[in-house]
């Protein structure tokens, strides 16, 4: 029971942090519940598919199928997160100011919602496929799964979902006028962390070997395998021994997103009615 609880909790917890952030980011946008729920369901289905085809996947590309797949979906999530931030930089202000009634803003808000729903799908798919593989393995070994495994998994799921809820509730206590800046920063850090994680997969597959020396070692302070380490890894990409390439890509992702947000932001137009 305990292994099932721990594994399910750990993976749901990691996906839950991301879902919680997405819920907070999209709070106030009509129909976001359906989008996020759709994202989660698609992620669970995707996780089952990935688990079923894990054998085939791992044999692709000279045995590097798993790493390439992970790097690709992470890269895609980075694009979606970056795009969301750039979109919000352009439309966020009008959205906050006049949105709720304005049908047009909500309709175009959906595009950004779809991007974030895809991020949810990817997060759930990545973490979920491990859960499926693990539980399937236990069930197969024990001939049909035990009650302990089901209970452990269920408790893990509930505890993980609680983290998602707490993340969301914590974030929405932030006053609306700061919320945009806080969530934009969170999303940018999330994207940078995922980009660095994608690099780690490419390094593991021996596809990237440039700048693979370890830049620092903070494992004495906080191991990235610990619970807090994992939380920070998911949220801001914390790694206790990053390679130079990971640090470069992390920084580059932040810079690119910040520059694009500046470039695409609407100029602070003088508004007659505010005079």
């Amino acid at each position, binding site marked *: 029971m305990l*292994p099932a609880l721990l*594994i399910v909790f750990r993976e749901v917890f990691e996906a839950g942090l991301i879902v919680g952030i997405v819920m907070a980011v999209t709070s106030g946008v009509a129909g976001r519940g359906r989008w996020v729920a759709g994202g989660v369901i698609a992620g669970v289905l995707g996780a089952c598919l990935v688990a079923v085809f*894990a*054998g085939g996947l*791992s*044999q692709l590309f000279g*045995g590097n199928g*798993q*790493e390439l797949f992970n790097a690709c979906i992470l890269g895609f999530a980075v694009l979606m997160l970056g795009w969301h931030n750039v979109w919000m930089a352009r439309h966020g202000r009008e959205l906050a100011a006049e949105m709720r009634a304005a049908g047009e803003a909500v309709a175009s808000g959906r595009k950004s919602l779809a991007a974030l729903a895809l991020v949810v799908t990817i997060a759930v798919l990545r973490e979920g*496929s*491990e859960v499926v*593989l*693990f539980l*399937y*393995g*236990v069930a*197969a*070994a024990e001939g049909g799964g035990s009650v302990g495994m089901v209970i452990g998994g269920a408790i893990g799921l509930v505890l993980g979902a609680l983290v998602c809820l707490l993340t969301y509730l914590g974030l929405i206590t932030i006053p609306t006028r700061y919320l945009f800046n806080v969530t934009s920063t969170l999303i940018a850090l999330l994207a940078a962390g995922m980009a660095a994680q994608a690099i*780690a997969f490419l*390094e*593991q*597959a*021996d596809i990237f*070997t440039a700048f*693979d*020396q*370890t830049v620092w070692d903070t*494992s004495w302070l906080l*191991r*990235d*395998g610990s619970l807090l380490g994992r939380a920070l890894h998911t949220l801001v990409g914390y*790694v*206790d*021994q990053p*390679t130079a390439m990971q640090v470069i890509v992390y920084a580059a992702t932040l810079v690119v997103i910040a520059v694009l947000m500046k470039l695409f932001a609407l100029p602070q137009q003088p508004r007659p009615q505010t005079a």
Partner: protein
Amino acid sequence: MLSLTIKDHQFEPAEVHAPPGKPIAFTIKNLGTIAAEFESSELHVEKVIPPGRDATVHVRPLEPGRYNFFDDFHRQTQGYLIVP
């Protein structure tokens, strides 16, 4: 290239050696009947190995030390890489 197998939730061998300062490749064959996840936070690798399959993971050049790796799906499956 370091070759390992996983069988009955044991690494064979459970201790492997590699020279310092050189890139290292592990090949792990899962001889068990259920999936394993070869993982090490110290070596920065994680890879699912379905039953009956093998997998290769690459590790960056290492300082001398003793590095732990394990099957993340079955934590009792533990092994060590010794870099003299």
